[in-house]
């Protein structure tokens, strides 16, 4: 582990920008969100979390799978500038377990995701505080951990300094060149930030969700919990672990491309078949599918929750549907 001042860290990022696109949170019109950085002094480190997760850099909202012209298929052009994403919170970095399982571990490998994943250096930052909607501790995520991602950092605002640690071999290589100060006060600092995190946010309390949901597939509560859900895609598009996509053709006749776009299981068309038959005809089934997918199906197959407790779906839902309440209802 190393300790550097803020100026040193910014200079470090500037140096990295020669080989990487630096992506970090900055303040925009709406709020704090990731963007490609040109002005390094604007990067924000002491926020709680960004508006949107960084998933769109590894899994873009639209991605060309291949192009075709006169019936001849060619690979899509790729932008292969490496990325360097700074300031990822521990909740978001855990979403990659879901993505990695779906796109890499499960055969066949999705080359598009893998390529972006391999060409990205992820810097996890310990979370200085928690929002009222945060519940990552339910999923055994430590918000102050710096052990995930390629590099982990902890920003201490008081001293304006960073504790920095390489985790993967690529990360270690990058960190190696930095000079360091005494890091023995790290645990002390971590303890200090721990106080900002409220306790008792654990919703699951070691219960076995697989067993619980297995017996409640047709529970009548499913008919109530989706409440005023209007069926928009906000929760899924904001969710750091939602990976569903739709494939469509763009272009005319024999010239065009095949593109995949984010899709949302909240849309009626998501599972509607050509015959007009829809296996999930109402919002009740769609919502149930979303909840079960996060807390049952993925848990059973991958042994990881499909939710990381970032609270974005709660903050952004126009009708205030709260996934925490839904877990509470069934536990």
């Amino acid at each position, binding site marked *: 582990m190393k300790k550097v001042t803020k100026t040193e860290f910014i200079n470090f990022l500037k140096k990295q920008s020669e080989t990487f696109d630096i992506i970090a949170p900055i303040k925009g019109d709406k709020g704090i969100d990731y963007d490609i950085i040109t002005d390094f002094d604007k990067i924000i480190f002491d926020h709680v979390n960004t508006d949107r997760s960084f998933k769109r850099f590894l899994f873009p909202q639209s991605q060309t799978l291949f192009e075709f012209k006169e019936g001849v298929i060619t690979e899509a052009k790729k932008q292969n500038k490496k990325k360097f994403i700074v300031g990822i919170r521990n909740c978001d970095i855990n979403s990659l377990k879901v993505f990695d399982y779906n796109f890499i571990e499960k055969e066949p490998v999705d*080359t598009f995701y893998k390529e972006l994943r391999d060409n990205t250096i992820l810097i996890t930052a310990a979370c200085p505080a928690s929002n009222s909607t945060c519940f990552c501790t339910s999923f055994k995520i430590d918000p102050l951990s710096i052990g995930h991602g390629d590099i982990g950092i902890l920003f201490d605002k008081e001293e304006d300094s960073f504790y920095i640690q390489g985790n993967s071999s690529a990360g270690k290589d990058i960190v190696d060149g930095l000079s360091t100060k005494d890091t023995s006060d790290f645990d002390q600092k971590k303890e200090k930030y721990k106080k900002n995190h409220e306790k008792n946010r654990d919703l699951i309390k070691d219960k076995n969700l697989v067993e619980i949901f297995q017996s409640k597939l047709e529970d009548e509560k499913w008919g109530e919990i989706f409440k005023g859900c209007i069926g928009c895609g906000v929760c899924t598009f904001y969710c750091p672990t939602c990976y569903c996509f739709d494939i469509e053709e763009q272009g005319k006749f024999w010239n065009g491309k095949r593109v995949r776009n984010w899709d949302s299981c909240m849309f009626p068309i998501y599972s509607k078949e050509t015959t007009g038959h829809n296996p999930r005809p109402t919002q009740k*089934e769609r919502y149930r599918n979303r909840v079960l997918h996060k807390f049952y199906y993925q848990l059973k197959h991958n042994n990881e929750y499909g939710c990381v407790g970032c609270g974005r779906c709660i903050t952004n839902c126009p009708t205030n549907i709260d996934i925490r309440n839904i877990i509470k209802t069934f536990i």
Partner: protein
Amino acid sequence: MKNTYIPITMEVEKNYFETSDRMIKTLRLKFLDERFDFEPGQFCEFSILGKGEAPFGIASSPFDKAGLEFSINRAGVVTKAIHELRIGEKVGIRGPLGNYYPVKEMEGYNVVVIGGGFAFTTLRSLIEYMLNPERRGKYKSIKVIYGARNPGLLLYKDLLENWEKRDDIGTYFTIDTKVEGWNKMVGFVPTITEEVAPSPENCYAIVCGPPIMIKFTLPVLLKLGFPKDKIVTSLERRMKCGIGKCGRCNLGEFYVCNDGPVFNFEQLEKLPKEV
């Protein structure tokens, strides 16, 4: 690493209407540079550039190595384009995808195949596979119960005739209502199943057809005494990627494209009612 979304190119070798209402066309595709083997019950993503992709079960026998056959009902954008294909045109195929009928587990068992309407495609593949001289010895008796609304809507009529002539397969073909010139059985598939009453002893039942047929056939089979894990069916879902990535085809915890399309009823029972 290979881009899994790119299809291989195949050529249309033959295409003809399969049914009298001219809604179902059978296409025979020829492998060109690349080729693959498959098992009965698997499906492919049939892709028409500029129109899209759609999944279809492979209807030809796995022993037919030169090409693939599909029987496709005209319904949406892609199927319309498929119907408009001419001989010699190139199409994209991604496959083989999904799991297949439990042909290994079925060895040494009797098999009764129950099909309805145009869901007979992968069943044909299965039957041809079992009837192949290489494989026939491995199964005991094979019975086929196949129904359609009227004789014109039965698929693969030539093949059905062939099977009737053979003595190593029992055939029970039925139509819903009586039509002149039809000298085989009349009645809905569930009723016929009850009449034929295959013995559940040491027997697999493969059921595939419209949801309504499955709904009524299942109780008949259970009544006859078939255990739930020996009743096997093949499901359909709206699919996009076909390789378990895009998420939409899940039926409960399973992705129909990857973990399916073949399931037995013991598995299906434990899932939310979302068929």
